[in-house]
């Protein structure tokens, strides 16, 4: 082969590939709205993305599968954990993961930052990325079902949607802080104390490990009814 032909292979290969790539990049931007819903990015999503960067979350957690593999993927975290659990975990990791084999650092995330982070993760969870990661698809389906058919909701769905990040019931949810069946038999609180406990655990039980919950009095009331009905 002549040097001239080799040079043509170089330029031909490079330019053809660059042209295809350039066109695909153009089309990627054209389809940004359909695939990523870019118009839904508001100030809170942007603020949340900055929180994500500020605390270097991406070096332990993957998102869209990129980053550190040390902690769970956050692409669909909004559906896996729910807003309330994300806020509780991010603000109180030392309590949530007290008995875990792997810890999360206490980062000093403020309430507002945590709420913005949720807005960011909510937007992220809606990127049309062909159902990745595989293990979180069941949470996405369940959450979408809850959103579209609220009338079909049972009390346990509500309770586990909000509390299932730490508590379990009937083999659902994560058993970090105890099963509702056992808790119901153990506790002596009345309905109103239970609501107060959810909103600010330490005001009822000073040595409680449970983080304060971001829950309205109405929802807390429903949850209290449910737990007390298990006695």
């Amino acid at each position: 082969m002549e040097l001239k032909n080799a040079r043509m292979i170089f330029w031909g290969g490079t330019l053809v590939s660059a042209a295809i790539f350039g066109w695909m990049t153009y089309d990627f931007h054209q389809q940004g709205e359909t695939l990523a819903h870019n118009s839904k990015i508001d100030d809170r999503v942007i603020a949340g993305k900055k929180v994500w960067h500020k605390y270097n979350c991406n070096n332990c957690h993957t998102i869209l599968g990129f980053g550190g593999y040390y902690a769970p993927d956050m692409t669909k975290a909004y559906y896996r954990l729910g807003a309330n659990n994300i806020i509780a975990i991010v603000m109180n990791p030392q309590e949530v993961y007290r008995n875990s084999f792997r810890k999360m650092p206490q980062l000093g995330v403020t309430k507002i930052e945590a709420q913005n982070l949720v807005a960011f993760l909510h937007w992220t969870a809606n990127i049309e990325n062909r159902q990745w990661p595989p293990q979180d698809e069941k949470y996405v389906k369940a959450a979408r079902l809850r959103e579209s058919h609220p009338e079909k909701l049972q009390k346990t769905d509500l309770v586990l949607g909000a509390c299932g990040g730490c508590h379990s019931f009937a083999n659902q949810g994560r058993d970090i802080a105890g099963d509702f069946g056992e808790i119901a038999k153990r506790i002596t609180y009345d309905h109103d104390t239970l609501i107060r406990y959810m909103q600010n655990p330490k005001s009822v039980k000073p040595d409680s490990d449970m983080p304060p919950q971001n829950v309205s009095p109405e929802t807390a009331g429903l949850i209290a009814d449910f737990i007390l009905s298990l006695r």
Partner: protein
Amino acid sequence: MTIKYQSQKVALPYMQLSLLLFVLQVIMGLWLAANYAFTLPQGLIDVFSFATSRAIHTNLLVAWMLLGFMGGAYFILPVECERELHSTKVAWLQLILFAAAAVTAVVGFLFGWTQGKPLLEIPVPLDLVIVVAALLFLFNILMTVLQAKNRTVLQWMLVGGVLFLALMYLFGIPFYSSLNTDYYYWWWVIHLWVEGAWELITASIIAFVIIQVTGVERKVVEKWLYVETGLFLFTGIVGTGHHYYWIGAPDYWLWWGGIFSALEPLPILLMVVDTWFHIRERKNPIVNQLLWVYIVALAIFHFIGAGLFGFVHTLPPINYYTHGSQITVSHGHMAFFGAYALLNLTVFYFALPQFKGIERYKATAGYWGFWIMAVSMFLLGLVFGVAGILQVYLERFLDIGYSTAHITMMFWFKVALFFGVCFLAGTLTTVYHLFTLKPVEEERSR
């Protein structure tokens, strides 16, 4: 063999600093493995988290790679252009800026000063320092090449690679409000570096070393260089698509990304073949066999780590399950070591004896260092691979939850930590050997 041009000496501090950062990177890697292998106390990780350590580990990697490339370029260009470098003062200024930015960045990470993007954590003000250093470098090598006594393919391939590298870096600097777009351009830096610009630089530097060491005709080597780099860019540019399967990109990326990235091992295979040919057709005697061992190891390990380990999980149906798991870690370690760590070490083994005017050096420690590193990195890659397959199977096939899947990993990371310690021993031996090269006795008595 001694250096032919005085200005080549400026490459020495680049190479020495590069080796130092290599050692630090490996030590930080051991710490990361310990984070996986054991449960660390909350108080410790609050101060020094996995995220901080990982940022340091990966940035040290990039820093020692780039220092090695820059030192290598400064070492080979005078010979290739048959003249002194344009300016050694600019080269020194560039080194000081680059090193200052790197040190500030690492200290900054410890105090939470970060841009929070994996591998591109360096905050914007430091990015600008890096850009200035890169511009100085580009200016210096471009001026040297422009005033060269002769024009060669290799010179332009090297300058082109560096220009490509510098341009792509810019895409990582801005803040993107959309995570989707953010990661689209993040890969313009990461992928188009390692499977584009860095391959151009590697191919040209290794072509130079092969011409010098084997004495094979330049015309033959440069022909291979054109074909290989052409294939690298042809497969590598559209091959970027294998990172876009699950980020929310149009469907046809699965096909384009899949097909082009399946072809990516091809140019590396060509590299193995042409290295083999050149060594067989060598015109020069083998003086320091260790250097030849490095040249062959670079070709083979490059092919296994980047080519084969990349290929096995690049096709979409497989990647759906393996994406973002320890399997990527396995591929990443094998590929960076095989393609770029070995390239830098090859260049150092080519250059460092010349600074000391050593014709033949004692190589025993060098062999030990090489074999310990190569074997432990291979085993490390396998261990990460086992951990990754387990993770994928438990978490994504059986769907038994993240914690359960990751608890099984603690054992495999204890094994990884062990091989990591072995690798560190190999690294220290190699670095010690490179810093203290001594001529063989018969030469001294002559």
